[in-house]
């Protein structure tokens, strides 16, 4: 037993070194975000001579950080609400229906999960461009529902299947319509899945780049997009570029520390299904 403890200590020390290596890039970005233009270029691995907090103010102003943050929050939150509502309802219908067509629909949904966005991004632009649905913070929500509904429905479906039918029947005897039954009885019971669905889709939408890079322009750009464009313009001033990177990471890191347990649970629950 004692030998085992020594061994554990050894592996823990090894793990700690690895952890430091994993964090090292973030650390360097943070350190350089506080340096002036010349200092960051000349010695990117030294400690800052003095902390240049103005970098953050300037970068925020030039990349219109607050607008981009607002766009990201708006796009992510509206898409999440829409995905949760649509996929929980669809899953309820599919799980409770005995029609043959609904198992066919379910199969199509599951199969569609393998289609990468790349396989339809080219027709996407022409098709939705003609309909005037590009460059809009509203319609991108619609697109995210289209791409997110299959997996979310799948997650809800597995859960609803295990809710006894007697609950629906009891509500129905009490005179509740299917609509009321769903929102009053079933939906509140789904909250663990809703958390999983929200976390998995939330991380995906918040960090998504390809779809917004095709769909959103200028003022409607989300945070990853704005950061990418800004970085491209400011590679001569690494202090500012690093400050932009730090700012674009802060929201998600804060979110993670606030919801750590839920996020880890959500990810393992979502992946294992």
């Amino acid at each position, binding site marked *: 037993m004692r030998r085992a403890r020594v061994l554990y200590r050894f592996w823990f020390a090894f793990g700690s070194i690895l952890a430091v290596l*994993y964090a090292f890039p*973030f650390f360097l970005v943070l350190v350089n975000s506080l340096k002036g233009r010349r200092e960051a270029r000349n010695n990117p691995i030294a400690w800052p001579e003095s902390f240049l907090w103005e970098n953050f103010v300037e970068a925020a102003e030039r990349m219109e950080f607050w607008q981009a943050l607002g766009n990201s929050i708006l796009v992510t939150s509206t898409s999440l609400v829409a995905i949760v509502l649509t996929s929980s309802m669809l899953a309820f219908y599919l799980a409770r229906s005995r029609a043959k067509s609904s198992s066919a629909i379910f199969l199509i949904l599951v199969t569609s999960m393998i289609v990468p966005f790349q396989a339809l991004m080219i027709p996407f632009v022409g098709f939705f461009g003609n309909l005037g649905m590009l460059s809009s913070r509203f319609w991108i929500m619609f697109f995210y529902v289209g791409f997110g509904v299959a997996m979310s429905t799948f997650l809800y479906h597995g859960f609803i299947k295990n809710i006894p039918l007697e609950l629906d029947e009891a509500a129905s005897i009490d005179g509740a319509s299917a609509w009321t039954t769903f929102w009053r009885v079933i939906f509140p019971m789904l909250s663990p899945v809703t958390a999983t669905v929200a976390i998995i889709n939330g991380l995906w939408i918040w960090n998504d780049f390809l779809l917004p890079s095709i769909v959103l322009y200028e003022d409607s750009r989300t945070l990853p997009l704005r950061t990418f464009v800004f970085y491209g313009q400011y590679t001569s001033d690494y202090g500012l570029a690093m400050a932009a990177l730090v700012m674009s990471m802060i929201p998600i890191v804060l979110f993670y520390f606030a919801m750590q347990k839920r996020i880890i649970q959500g990810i393992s629950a979502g992946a294992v299904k």
Partner: protein
Amino acid sequence: MANRSTRTRVQELKRFGIFALVPLFIFTFVLVVPFFRGVFLTFTDWDGFETTSIVGFDNYFLAFQDEAFWASMGITLAYVFASLILVNLVGFGLALLVTIPLKGVNVLRTFFFVPNLIGGVILGLIWQFIFGQALPTMAEQFDLPFFQENWLVTTDTAFWALVLVTVWQMSGYMMIIYVTGLMSIEKDVLEAALVDGATGLRTLVSIKLPLMAQAFTISLFLTIRNAFMAYDVNIALNNGGPYRSTELISLHVFRDAFGFGNFATGQSKAVIMFLIIAIAALTQVIVSKRFEVQR
């Protein structure tokens, strides 16, 4: 009896209208229609605006004649293979590390997982700075044999740079899945093995691995899929450079269509990419399922 069955059918239809119609409409409109339209367009002379004639398989022939396409396919396959091995090896190793019975391991978990929270574009930009600025300075100051040059400007090193960032990004995620797998093994089984005098390595190979095979199925599937679709890190790190030599298939398709205006050929390449992903993922799942122990 007949009356009753029509009534349930009406009810069924009503339920469909209330709960399923809107989600299915959006799903069809956003995913199904563009997908089939995309497949259809590969058989036409579509130029991004209009189609005038059906051209059969010409776009596919053009795609196969394009050397840049083959080069991109080759580098993508190498990248998928390297990521598949390394991400899962590291991810599984990390999972073993963070499940040792010591208090501090939860903190380690966070360190390994955090890169995965952040989008690929930001990660790519971070490493553009690390490879381009920080590491060369470091190599100079400490006289390191590698990293003297920017890894992103020569083909071989740029490829491994891309793999390195991918491992850094995805291993924490796979770690979570493997931890879930390790935790799902019942304690009795492990105690029985200990009583029987099995060594740590023996327990790992003969008991843990077979009992958590499902975690491998999932992780391998996700790595293959993510690696084939990789775009963000690729564009942000060095834009597929130098001279398009590390341009993965997603970026290649994107450029072909939106950069060079080869819409129909580009879409054919996208369809080929889709077929390869589908076949690779299905084969892998079928093969992995054989190793899973029925419980």
